[in-house]
């Protein structure tokens, strides 16, 4: 096992990784920008190295600086955390070239899954279900009708050269298809100088469901079930839960087996997440994240598995500490992402945290690097705390979350806590009745 791990990140995730290391008896090296000299991960780490000025590009994204820090500190391995360099294949390769262990998958896996088109092709070849559509451009209306009937209405007509919603039309039924095709072609021609279009199944009310994978270098792959991350605003997740209110046990087992079989064939190592759209009982692959996820704690709470510990173990060449049969799902967990931003305007609210009081008690976990007197820098992500609540049932979990949000107090800056309080009182949320478009509507309905 490693003696000393450098944590190439900041904020709550750096602290999360520090905690896992300390619990494994591994010494930690924090790296930080000058803006983070007083940050919690720096205070708690065994050692710290200042690697640059506040801008991320010159500090947390500065590969030579991080590698130099690892060298002077004598680290064995580097954990990239989430964001920053965590899905940078070049960094992963450099880390290994310099004789350190990269706590994550191989650079090749990162590269492949980092390319959206290649990732979908890979998924298809690994028998992971993707959104069905035409294989490439559609030549004529007859072919379009045949393909559309095959994949089922509604279908989406998309410009092959397109992007940004231009040249994109929904055909609800066969009656609309010809017109949708001609409108899409015209728009595509006008916008991209190319009228080629293709068809894809249109999902009107999908949920965002992702499967947590863990794999070691000995061919063992397990899944930790799903997380429902449908509550998003501008593609930012605000609250995640596991299990999903929309999945039953046989669906969970089926998609889990699909995912583990695929990852075994893929030769993947480390923690990873397969993201899907889910509608009407069907899964459609969107992308794979070849790293830890912000919302990983909800899986930890229902399985009792420490995901970061497993990441570190498998990076060190050890086998996974448990097999699929050892994974049990108990109760329910919800994570609220607390951001330093206005609950009304969503404008960032960096600044001095005058008071910080986290909730406690049974079933309440807080992952946060905040403390009273800390100044939230304006240079980085606005995520400042994760409140993770678990209970024996979804209802118990919701009740506990409500009381935990009542207790949570962060003074001096604005946070998303008021939005979370509103959100968990919404009947649709309480009923588990939401899709990926629900939160935008909920937020807009306030006005």
């Amino acid at each position, binding site marked *: 096992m490693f003696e000393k791990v450098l944590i190439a990140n900041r904020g709550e995730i750096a602290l999360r990784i520090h905690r896992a290391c300390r619990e494994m008896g591994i010494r930690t090296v924090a790296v930080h920008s000058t803006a983070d000299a*007083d940050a919690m991960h720096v205070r708690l780490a065994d050692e710290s190295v200042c690697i640059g000025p506040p801008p991320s590009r010159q500090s947390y994204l500065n590969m030579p*600086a991080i590698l130099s820090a690892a060298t002077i500190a004598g680290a064995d391995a580097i954990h990239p955390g989430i964001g920053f360099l965590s899905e940078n294949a070049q960094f992963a390769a450099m880390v290994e070239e310099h004789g350190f262990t990269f706590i994550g998958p191989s650079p090749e896996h990162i590269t492949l899954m980092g390319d959206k088109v290649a990732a979908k092709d890979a998924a298809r070849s690994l028998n992971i279900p993707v959104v069905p559509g035409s294989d490439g451009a559609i030549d004529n209306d007859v072919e379009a009708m045949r393909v559309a009937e095959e994949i089922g209405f509604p279908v989406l007509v998309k410009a092959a050269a397109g992007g940004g919603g231009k040249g994109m039309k929904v055909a609800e039924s066969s009656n609309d298809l010809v017109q949708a095709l001609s409108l899409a072609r015209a728009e595509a021609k006008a916008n991209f100088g190319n009228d080629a279009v293709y068809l894809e199944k249109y999902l009107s009310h999908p949920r965002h469901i992702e499967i947590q994978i863990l794999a070691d270098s000995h061919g063992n792959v397990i899944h930790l079930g799903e997380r429902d991350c449908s509550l998003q605003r501008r593609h930012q997740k605000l609250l995640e839960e596991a299990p999903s209110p929309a999945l039953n046990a046989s669906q969970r087992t089926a998609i889990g087996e699909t995912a583990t079989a695929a990852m075994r064939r893929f030769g993947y190592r480390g923690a990873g997440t397969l993201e899907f759209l889910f509608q009407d009982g069907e899964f459609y692959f969107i992308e794979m994240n070849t790293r830890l996820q912000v919302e990983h704690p909800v899986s930890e709470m229902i399985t009792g598995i420490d995901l970061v510990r497993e990441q570190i173990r498998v990076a060190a060449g050890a086998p996974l500490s448990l097999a699929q049969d050892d994974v049990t799902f108990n109760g329910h967990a919800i994570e609220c992402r607390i951001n330093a931003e206005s609950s009304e305007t969503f404008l960032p609210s960096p600044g001095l945290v005058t008071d910080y009081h986290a909730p406690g008690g049974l079933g309440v976990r807080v992952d946060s690097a905040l403390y009273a007197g800390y100044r939230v820098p304006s240079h980085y992500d606005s995520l400042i705390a994760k409140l993770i609540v678990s209970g024996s049932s979804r209802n118990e979990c919701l009740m506990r979350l409500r009381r935990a949000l009542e207790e949570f107090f962060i003074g001096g800056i604005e946070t998303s806590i008021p939005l979370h309080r509103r959100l968990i009182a919404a009947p649709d949320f309480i009923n588990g009745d939401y899709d990926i478009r629900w939160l935008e509507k909920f937020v807009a309905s306030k006005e």
Partner: protein
Amino acid sequence: MPKFDVDESLVRKLAGLLEETGLNEIEYEISDQRIRVTRGGATMIAAAQAAPMAQAPAMAGAAPAAAPSDAPPAGAVLSPMVGTVYVSPEPGAPPYVKVGDQVAEGQTLLIVEAMKVMNPIPAPRAGKVEQILVSDAQPVEYGDVLLVVQ
């Protein structure tokens, strides 16, 4: 107040370093933690790390904002990167500069090696080398004071 305690192993380690290096004194400071051990006289300043729990008390109260430390002295030349300092072009060669030297603007003062790349640190202005705060092969962080030229 939390109990004020010392890291005994750190003291022992520094004592061992004194013995090994033949130095007379080591002083070690990080943000609000400082340790100094002596065995005679003379000065050498090193900067690196300390024990975690010793740091926690700093979380206390008032929250001095994220100032890296005290403002560097006038004429300070700061390290522009994390790396290892070399005071001479090659092992055994005379150092680029000594205390008291007059240097021209742009003249190389020392080298910071990072990722096998030798980065010459030029004098930001003409002046006299007042202090050299690093020694050969010493690791430095971003923003550490390397020397003072005035």
